[in-house]
């Protein structure tokens, strides 16, 4: 029992450490990537002992700055809620990672360790529940600040999240029907199967339409361009207009964390999670007959690498979109959500159901 607890604590620590560092690293990548796309050099100051490391230390400098800044709470704000809001945001973004399987089961002696902090049967529901709860941070920030801009940001965030979550959920029902599970661990394992003996049954292969709906709606969930209406820095500044110091930093961090959650989810649901094509626990079995045996450790490491690479590619894609597209207007956003994505998701669901009925039992 104690060992079990220690293993879980270790896994949680690992995920926590990895994700937070990745979020920090994300700020650097974003700076450099935006510089690349905009013909600039990008942040390259903030040296430590003369080493600039291509501006890598800017993340640290940011954090130092935010921690030492004066924390201003406006007079008209609700002090308690104003303080709670950023914690809500960060907390729910972080706990969402608990249910995401990030590697294949690791075998140490007799013990099989699932590389997933919490093995929840309804993991998919759990992740979405956490992401939805995250919006409370935004709403609270908006309402507790006592500022008209913040209220507008909060209201926009609420409307946007609720509208897009529906399309998001319905898009995923198709995947759930095909794989017959909402346990993310099983979902990933099930995606390792091959279609016609050569095509990995990844979500993108069997549900391409759902994938595009998912990515669009998930981008809207992360509140980044082109869906950054709650922030819209040149329009209404955002729900965090009255925050300073590390409280603002937490909202900032939440943005990056949510991007990573969404990237991990897209990987897990549509790109086979930690699956490497044709890799089984005992080695590679290529459809054209080659066999390369691997041991469990290599298998696990390959899985971890596969998951990370796919996730990072998604993060990069989201950044690329962020620096390319302008922002929607409120009504256009709602139109896209309710009149665009929602009907397509429903049609996709119906078509999937009909096809499944005709094909018989899929699994």
């Amino acid at each position: 029992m104690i060992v079990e607890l220690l293993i879980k604590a270790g896994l949680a620590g690992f995920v926590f450490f990895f994700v937070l560092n990745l979020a920090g690293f994300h700020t650097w990548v974003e700076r450099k990537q935006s510089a690349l796309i905009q013909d600039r050099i990008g942040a390259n100051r903030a040296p430590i002992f003369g080493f600039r490391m291509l501006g890598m230390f800017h993340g640290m400098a940011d954090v130092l700055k935010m921690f030492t800044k004066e924390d201003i709470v406006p007079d008209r704000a609700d002090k308690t809620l104003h303080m709670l809001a950023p914690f809500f945001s960060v907390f729910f973004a972080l706990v969402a990672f608990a249910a995401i399987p990030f590697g294949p089961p690791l075998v140490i002696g007799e013990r099989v360790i699932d590389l997933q902090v919490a093995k929840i049967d309804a993991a998919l529901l759990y992740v979405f529940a956490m992401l939805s709860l995250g919006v409370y941070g935004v709403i609270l920030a908006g309402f507790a600040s006592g500022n008209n801009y913040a209220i507008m940001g909060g209201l926009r965030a609420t409307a946007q999240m609720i509208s897009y979550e529906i399309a998001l959920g319905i898009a995923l029902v198709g995947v759930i029907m095909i794989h017959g599970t909402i346990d993310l661990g099983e979902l990933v394992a099930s995606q390792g199967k091959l279609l016609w003996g050569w095509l990995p049954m990844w979500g993108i292969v069997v549900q391409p339409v759902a994938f595009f709906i998912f990515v669009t709606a998930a981008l809207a969930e992360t509140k980044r361009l082109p869906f950054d209406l709650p922030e819209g820095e040149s329009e209404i500044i955002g729900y965090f207009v009255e925050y300073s110091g590390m409280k603002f930093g937490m909202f900032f961090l939440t943005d990056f964390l949510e991007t990573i959650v969404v990237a991990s989810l897209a990987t897990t649901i549509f790109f086979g999670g930690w699956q490497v094509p044709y890799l089984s626990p005992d080695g590679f079995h290529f459809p054209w007959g080659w066999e390369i045996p691997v041991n469990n450790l290599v298998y696990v490491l390959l899985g971890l690498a596969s998951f990370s690479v796919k996730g990072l590619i998604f993060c990069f894609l989201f950044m690329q979109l962020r620096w390319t597209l302008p922002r929607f207007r409120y009504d256009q956003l709602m139109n896209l959500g309710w009149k665009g994505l929602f009907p397509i998701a429903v049609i996709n669901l119906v078509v999937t159901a009909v096809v499944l009925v005709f094909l018989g039992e899929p699994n």
Partner: protein
Amino acid sequence: MPIEQSTTTTTLHESGLATKDMLLNIGPAHPAMHGIVRIIARLEGEEIEEVDVEIGYLHRGFEKMSENVDYNGVIPYTDRLNYVSPLINNMGYCMTVEKLLGITVPERCHYVRVIVSEISRISDHLTCVGATAMELGAFTVFLYMIKAREFLWELVEKVTGARLTVSYCRVGGVKGDLPDEFVEPCRAAFKETRKVLDEARGLLERNRIFTDRMNGTGIISAEDAIGYGITGPFLRASGSDYDVRKDCPYAIYDRIDFDVPIGSEGDNMDRFLVRMEEMEQSMRIVEAAFEQMPPGPVMVDPGTGRPIPAAEMVDLAKMGNIAAITGGCAIAGPTLEGSSRAHYPSTATDEKRAFLPPKEDAYGNIEGLMQQFKLVMMGHGIRGPLGEVYFAVEGANGELGFYVVSDGRGHAYRVRVRPPCFAIMSALPELLVGDMVADIIPTFGSVNMIGGELDR
């Protein structure tokens, strides 16, 4: 009409819920209110019900200051009107005073002025379109456009020696001719600019989000626009083809073939497209002007004497070391390239009462120094005839007019500017009411409000 806090009303919504409209104070410190301005909006949800625009945050008393310095002394102030395209302001003011004094400037001077003011127009439009795109979230386009503007500002720097506060034109001419190496860098810069414009078109015109944001927002009809006194790209987007360069041609615009793009809807998209096309037309004008420009001296004539930098010559003369400069010929510094005596006949009027002498003369001989002195001393120099004069040029935002009243003294009795964006700002409430909060951004962006010009 100012909006009072107490006008916020509580109404009973049809669902029975009491709703209250919201007063949103946008600016003067707000990221989108570039050039300082304040918009107070009364909102019903996201929709704008009433707007009050408050201007005057950048009032510096340009017109009053102009009454207290001589005619040439006003030129540096005009740089600070529309600071994105200062050369057009320079040109407008100088042409007004020239009209007052009855001075005709040489042919080549007109061409030089037209070339630099068209380059300024492009940089102004680039800034306007880029800033609008940035505020809509397309940050990358903004930086591309600023990159293109940088190429153009390098050209401006080559010609004038400065990037922002150029003070290039003089009453009766320009400070100096174009530098020797100008046509080629200019063509190269245009090539880069065209590339950037193509990229921007790809990123914006074919972008559904952008076109959705721009189409059908901030609409004004041609009649209303004329009623408000709106001119420039803003009016042309509504369908009227009024362009000072075509309708009351000045300088050499009547000799150059260019098109005036007009829109049909009068919405933000049309204004964006009109500006994009005007940049192309401006480049066309400059290229045609290069073809037609009458030759003038392009090489600085070294003269007979030994070249001595002007500043050094002044220092030597101050110390009484006349022997060291005897037979010397003053040469102007790098930023004054083209402002030597050899260029003067082709870029400056021969009206010596009005035009400052070449720098070698001012630094190098007593006659030149005296002439310079007489011109810049208060109460000497140019005396305008009694009368008043109005002259307008096509600024980047529209008709930029100067109205100068002279009472026969060495400085103007009254200078009044007709800033093009003032008329547009007065129409802003009409443009905004009925649209959504987010539409303030593209509409206000397409106004291209320049604080220096609006508030003066």
